[in-house]
């Protein structure tokens, strides 16, 4: 496997680790129903669709966080890849 591919893969994993660590679990917010085997929270998909109504023109929405996290992940990929490449060049 090409060296570049492997380094990119490590970077992608780093992004995944960051995103997984910063993604919160389901909200646990009660819908009002207090019985039954079914879900007792607002599914994440509904939360996402409900968000834009209050997020127009603001930068503090969930989407903003996702962009920030993704951007940080890209920085990790670039720096991590560059660091690994530079380290490998210093070795005989």
């Amino acid at each position, binding site marked *: 496997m090409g060296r570049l591919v492997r380094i990119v893969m490590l970077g992608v994993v780093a992004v995944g680790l960051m995103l997984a660590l910063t993604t919160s679990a389901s909200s646990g917010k009660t819908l009002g129903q207090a019985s039954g085997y*079914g879900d007792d929270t607002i*599914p994440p998909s509904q939360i996402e669709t409900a968000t834009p109504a209050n997020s127009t023109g603001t930068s503090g929405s969930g989407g903003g966080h996702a962009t920030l996290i993704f951007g940080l992940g890209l920085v990790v990929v670039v720096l991590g890849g560059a660091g690994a490449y530079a380290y*490998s060049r210093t070795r005989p």
Partner: protein
Amino acid sequence: MTPTDLLSRARLRWEWVCGVALGIAVVGPGLAPGGLLSLDLVATPTIPVPSGIWGVGPDLPRRVPYGVVVAWLSHVIGGPLTIKLLVVVCIAAAFAGAANLLREEPIVTRAAAGLLYGVSPFTLTRVGVGHIGLLLGMAALPWALPWLLRPADQPARALRWATALGLAGFAGGVFALALLVVGLIADRGRRGVATAGIAVVSQLPWVVPALVVAATSGSVRPASGFATRVGGATGLLQLASGHGFWRASSQVGGVGIGTAILGLALVALAVVGARKLPHAWARRATIAAAVGFVVAAASGVPGLDTLYRSLTANGPGLVVRESQRALPLFLVWLAPAAALGGRQLARQATRLEAALYVATPAVIAGVLAVPGLWGVGGRLDPVQFPDGWSRARAAVTSHPGTVVALPWHEYLDIGFAGGRRVLNPLPDYLGGDVITSSDPELGGSDQERADPREARVQAVVADLHAGRPGSPELARLGVRWIALLHEVDWADYPGLAVDQGLVATVRTPSIDLYEVRDRSYGKPSNSPRRGWPAVPVLVADLVTIVAWAVVSGRCRATHRHVPSLSAVKRR
């Protein structure tokens, strides 16, 4: 034995030491005194023998047969401790089993395999919702896998491990049957009769009660709505990382692109490492994993979901109606293969990169597990049952009789359990004959217990809701007690207050207990707890026990000559 000897032994058994430590880390605060209440996890002070055990209902045989051992243990050390120890043992066995699949590899690789399997989001989610049978099946699966995938080579060992899975009930039985079928096909039918015999004999303890209940009960209307959550472009990748439980709020770990990326990374590592799996079972395990993944995803993939629902709506298909339960067949391949993948990549890398590659599977496993450690997000917080409950149980125990459990919900939020949604704990708490709703309220007016009295009690409940008395009909049904938990809509039964046929025996802030005054013209009719069905179930259990005892003797006799299946030459 000196401390040095103990340390040496602990080093030799490091998988088990680490596994137990992991189990303790998962259960965490739950190990403190107190019961456990979280969805299907109901650990009451004592746990009754499941009523489905002899096939006489009214419960469908879900906790069969392992529930008998759990019940016996609960009377010795208490129900909560029994369940907590069981969870720790399951996680330890799953970790050690996955590590044992790579017994020729370095410790780091084996530990990564153990982590990926033993504390995957799938495992932790099932701990949090109390699917004990599935956890038992997962614990035995990595140990059983090599033998069940080559049933023709060592039939005695195959039967031994298939029986071990069968003792976990249908959840483990499905794993055994799937692996045996893959093994039989891969063996091209060699010793086909023996393999079929293994499949049948090993699963009798749960299959026969299920058949008996199916044959003798006409009132069951199974629920649906358990589709795996694989929606969105990344759903299948999230499934690979152990997500996708049908009840989103019970899933351990956040859902999103992060888990999808980690799922993709694990699959990529597994593809790289699969070639290095032990030769004796590598290809067969890969096929079983593919089957497990497809089945797990099938109920949630558009196009396949309708077909899957129709196949599992009734009959034998019901055991896999919640298809994500098949995912361990995939995870038990993914974990060792991904761990080997990291090691394989490290062979071609510089020292720094090599360390990263070797560590990657374990780091991914750790990150995926973090949200579930130390009590599975509060789901294992111990609970103290209110004093009123013990007073009610004492009254019922001193004057035994059939109990109707109100509010009329199979699952309801319990205040003293942190408001968690829980399977109505009264049947387990009181023991004996308790009539409760078995409608999971998933929109279908379903009835999941084979109890012909349930529909009649439901009519009584409607009367009580409407402010009309219900005691005459309850008397005809042979009901002696009504237990009313002060939870959710408990105040919506005005009929109880005006019913002259009821005597309030216990009134507390947490529970009320009413006794039906006149039961003279009633008799305990239609009780499902009696009859001939126990006979075939007893015979089936006897057959399995005898077969297991015989092959265990043979396995012990040949143990020294067959240290591992890796040594068995492919024929």
